[in-house]
């Protein structure tokens, strides 16, 4: 894995993790997120992740071992972010959602098969 590719993957993983955290927290809050009305134009981590995905080979799905490695990186990052919040007293965070939300995004990004 070249240095450049590895850096791109790091940034990609960071942005996907951020999106996963966002989706899980959105489900945990007890108030309606009014911003959804206005969000369409706002740049999201997911869009940034898409930009980096375009620069990473292979363009099709990753080999299983590489995909698993990436999933582990995302899982750890997301857990760390969610645990940080839980330690501050944030309730209702559903850690069980991590894998399903992550898979959904990685399928969309053509990292794993749909």
């Amino acid at each position, binding site marked *: 894995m070249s240095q450049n590719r590895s850096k791109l993957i*790091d*940034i990609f993983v*960071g*942005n996907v993790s*951020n999106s996963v*955290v*966002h989706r899980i*927290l*959105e489900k*945990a*809050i*007890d*108030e*309606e*997120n*009014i*911003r959804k*009305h*206005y969000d*369409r*134009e*706002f*740049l*999201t*981590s997911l869009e*940034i992740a898409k*930009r*980096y995905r375009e620069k990473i080979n292979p363009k099709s799905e990753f080999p299983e071992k590489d995909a698993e490695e990436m999933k582990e990186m995302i899982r750890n990052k997301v857990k760390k972010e969610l645990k*940080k*919040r839980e330690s*501050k*007293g*944030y*309730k209702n965070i559903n850690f069980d959602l991590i894998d399903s939300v992550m898979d959904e995004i990685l399928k969309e990004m053509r990292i794993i098969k749909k």
Partner: protein
Amino acid sequence: MVELIGKVSKGSKMDQIYIPKNRESIPVGSYVIIKPLETEKQEIKPYFYKVSIEPIKVEIIKNIMQIIDRNTDNENIIITGSFLEKGFQFNDIDILVIGGNIKEEILENYLGVKVHIISIANNALIKGLETDPLYNLMLSRCVSKKRVIYNIKRKINYKLLDLHLLKSKINNFESLKGKEKYEVVRNMIAIKTFITKKEVSREKVDSEINKLFGLEEIKENLIGKTEFNKKYKKIYTETERLIMEGIKNESK
């Protein structure tokens, strides 16, 4: 010249307009122009909030409001966003239709410009203004059909702000254009200003961004990478700390 008024009625294959058989002119076989009978237009006098724009934009805004009024019942129409900046650098026109909705294509076909319709109920808008600094920014500079009077009591919901701040969590700025950098910085500064109970307005937030990074430098993407990252990270960490503290206190 003789003018006749008729009503379009529904036919099985084609619709038709019936006109009296006994008429002085327009014999059978002659060609006529059919156009809708304009009902008397009520002149729209928009309200400007901290906006000073070119007369042509004022006309566009009046047209927008008239088209929306013709197509949907609504409580108010508010124009906001980059269209209200001086010049013609805007990407689209942000339009809030309070208590109504209209298809974007209707306006786009008429104006030839991209529009972004935010259809929102009045109580949802009030909730947005109470809890979300971006709504405060949006309405701090706008043009509206009716006077905008909201008696808003700020409610700090730290979990919501945490969610909003995540939009500004950027791992790497290299792929971002100047405008995008400005948006993530603006979101972060607006949240910080909101938490510290200061006034959240376009002017105040832009002035803070100018002080920290240079407003034009950031929009034009001229700011040095290292300098930008360092300052950005510092403000982000501080804002996140305030939010986490708030969540901790809320949970006690």
